[in-house]
């Protein structure tokens, strides 16, 4: 009966892959069943002798432990149930559970009976679990976020990590058992409570921004993430991650300030992408240009703002800088949406990220119309002043030379008369005196004429048919023209009008006609061709002759000065061109000359037509 039962056990054990072993304490005889041999990967006829079975236990802790346990069982009759790592005959690592019962007869241990079970699979599972637990607890404890686990049945915090303590200022033990609402300032409690309640019902991962209150009453901006729930013993726990976002908030606040500054400043700001099209503009820019945001975005701001008088060179400079992704500073004449002009000082700055990749252009500008207008006015005033100055210089020269030369002649005559003893001789010098005074009064008359021209800058200009005036001048000079055999032709249309003071135009035409006649060349048939062209705001009349011409390099600087003559003509007075120049300047015009000695001259009369 007993035998049968034992046999049954063996079979059951075998089918459960549980090995059975037996050792006689006195003889140290050991017997192993087939299951053990299979686990140890030894042949079926393997005989364990002299306790060498111990050697399958992996050297070190495992082998030392089994040795002690066996000794205690043998000597003191203490049973054991332990797990070990073994190394099989084929050098495989396995985990086994060894249970040992001590058979005691007459108070003495007689036999050790035991089981030997391969638990490698189970052990591996346990190891994995242990690893996961370690991993998760390390995440839990070292996470940068504060993690709270809340018992949803009562709202108390059941666990938290060390970061929570840092964040809240509480000791970790103080936090555990605290009601979660205590973490939030009063005014945020309701919001936080609702959020947590919502997360209890729904599953998705959600985030909310709020504040927590530290132990010391300080409010810290945080972001709460929640959504993880787990259930233990019918109690649902909610995991909350709380992240300190003070730094982000600071940056956000700074950014908000910056963007407030950008949108509220009186300087205009436009942000332009690398293609040169606008992505944003501030209110000042919209106010200045008159465009709205939709009209600006996606457009090239330069294209929107340019107009007929915008300087092409400046536009090219700006385009080049944008193409080369360079910063640039320009001042440009722009137009608003309503085509009103304004001067725009623009600073285009390039923005690169930390990797030196180009991000965009920022154009900061301001309306400098009043400044530029003042500058232009100043420039104009400077021009007027310097032209007045050079006129004044001429006058000084006239006074110092022309008048002086006559008066010195007169005093020389007086000197001669004084030094002459004979009365008849004295009287004979009076003719010279008369000649001197006549010349003086002639000079003074010319001077008067020039001063008159320079004073009458405000005489009304009128529209005059130029062709008509040319014909009149020809008529007045018909005798001289005939005598000098000069051919005068013109290409002036009969209906062409010029804007001028009639008397001045008369005088200018007369002067240029007589000049062409006076300084004609004797070596060829003389011609004078009159043509016209339009240069910007001026109508330019060209008087082109084939006369003597003059060396502009030598005399160019004094051709329009007073009393300068360049040819050995008896009737050259050196006053005509000086008066012509003054008359033209009085009408906002000017005179220029192109000439070559021996070939002829071309006098260009600029009449201002605006």
């Amino acid at each position, binding site marked *: 009966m007993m035998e049968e039962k034992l046999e049954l056990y063996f079979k059951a054990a075998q089918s459960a892959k549980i090995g059975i072993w037996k050792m006689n304490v006195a003889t140290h005889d050991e017997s192993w069943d087939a299951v053990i041999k299979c686990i140890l990967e030894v042949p079926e006829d393997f005989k364990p002798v002299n306790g060498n079975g111990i050697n399958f236990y992996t050297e070190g802790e495992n082998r030392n432990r089994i040795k002690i346990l066996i000794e205690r069982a043998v000597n003191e009759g203490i049973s054991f149930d332990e797990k070990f790592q073994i190394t099989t005959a084929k050098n495989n690592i396995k985990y086994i559970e060894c249970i040992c019962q001590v058979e005691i007869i007459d108070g003495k241990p007689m036999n050790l009976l035991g089981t030997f079970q391969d638990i490698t699979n189970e052990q591996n599972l346990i190891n994995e679990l242990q690893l996961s637990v370690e991993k998760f607890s390390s995440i839990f404890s070292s996470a940068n976020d504060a993690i709270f686990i809340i018992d949803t049945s009562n709202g108390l915090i059941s666990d938290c990590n060390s970061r929570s303590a840092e964040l809240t200022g509480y000791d970790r033990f103080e936090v555990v058992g605290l009601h979660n609402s205590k973490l939030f300032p009063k005014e945020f409690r309701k919001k936080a409570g609702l959020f947590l309640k919502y997360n209890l019902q729904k599953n998705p991962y959600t985030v909310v921004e709020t504040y927590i209150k530290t132990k010391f009453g300080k409010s810290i901006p945080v972001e709460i993430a929640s959504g993880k729930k787990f259930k233990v013993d019918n109690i649902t726990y909610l995991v909350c991650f709380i992240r300190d976002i003070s730094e982000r908030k600071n940056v956000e606040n700074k950014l908000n300030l910056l963007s407030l500054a950008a949108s509220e400043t009186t300087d205009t700001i436009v942000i332009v992408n690398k293609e040169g099209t606008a992505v944003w503009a501030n209110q000042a820019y919209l106010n200045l240009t008159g465009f709205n945001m939709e009209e600006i975005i996606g457009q090239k701001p330069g294209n929107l703002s340019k107009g007929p008088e915008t300087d092409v060179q400046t536009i090219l400079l700006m385009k080049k800088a944008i193409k080369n992704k360079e910063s640039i500073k320009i001042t440009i004449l722009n137009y608003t949406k309503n085509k009103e002009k304004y001067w725009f000082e623009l600073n285009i700055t390039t923005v690169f990220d930390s990797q030196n990749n180009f991000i965009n252009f920022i154009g900061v500008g301001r309306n400098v119309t009043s400044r530029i207008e003042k500058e232009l006015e100043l420039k104009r005033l400077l021009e007027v002043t310097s032209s007045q100055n050079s006129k004044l210089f001429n006058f000084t020269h006239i006074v110092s030379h022309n008048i002086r*030369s006559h008066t*010195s002649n007169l005093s*020389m005559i007086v*000197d*001669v008369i004084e*030094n002459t003893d004979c009365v008849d001789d004295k009287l004979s010098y009076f003719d010279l005196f008369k000649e001197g005074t006549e010349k003086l009064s002639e000079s003074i008359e010319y001077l008067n004429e020039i001063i008159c021209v320079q004073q009458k800058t405000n005489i009304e200009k009128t529209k005059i048919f130029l062709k008509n005036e040319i014909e009149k001048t020809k008529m007045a000079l018909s005798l001289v023209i005939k005598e000098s055999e000069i051919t005068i032709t013109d290409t002036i249309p009969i209906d062409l009008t010029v804007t001028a003071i009639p008397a001045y135009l008369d005088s200018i035409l007369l002067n240029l006609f007589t000049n062409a006649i006076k300084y004609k060349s004797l070596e060829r048939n003389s011609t004078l061709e009159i043509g016209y062209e339009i240069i910007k705001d001026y109508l330019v009349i060209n008087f082109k002759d084939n006369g003597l011409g003059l060396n502009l390099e030598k005399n160019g600087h004094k051709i329009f000065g007073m009393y300068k003559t360049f040819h*050995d003509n008896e009737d050259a007075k050196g006053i005509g061109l000086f008066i012509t120049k003054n008359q033209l300047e009085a009408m906002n015009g000017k005179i220029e000359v192109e000439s070559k000695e021996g070939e002829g001259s071309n006098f260009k009369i600029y009449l201002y037509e605006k």
Partner: protein
Amino acid sequence: MKNKLTYIIDDDKLTVKLMSILISKNDFCEEIESFYNAKDAISKLKENAGDNGILPDAILLDLNMPVMDGWQFLDEFISLPITKEIHIFIMTSSIDPADIEMATTYKVVKEYIMKPITTQKLDDLCKLISDLN
């Protein structure tokens, strides 16, 4: 050495006439030759460049003249192949300091005389010439 021949170069005929009268009453020189423009004077000088006997001893030169002014005359004069020492006196109604300054840059210019020319000034000039000689 006595100042024999003097050129007067001035476009103002009245001045030339008066100068001649003053000089003839003075012992300034024996003979005067007048030019109403500087170009003619240059031609004459060029023509006689090799003959020291008929070249002038002194030239009274005006500055403001048509065709060729006093400065242009001086520039051309310097380039002439003349070995004789000819004293040039600028004689002008210009009191412009720039002109006086400019005159000092020409070595051949011995004196800058402001018009009107008086007997006194001619006497001083005589003394200067004899000092120079």
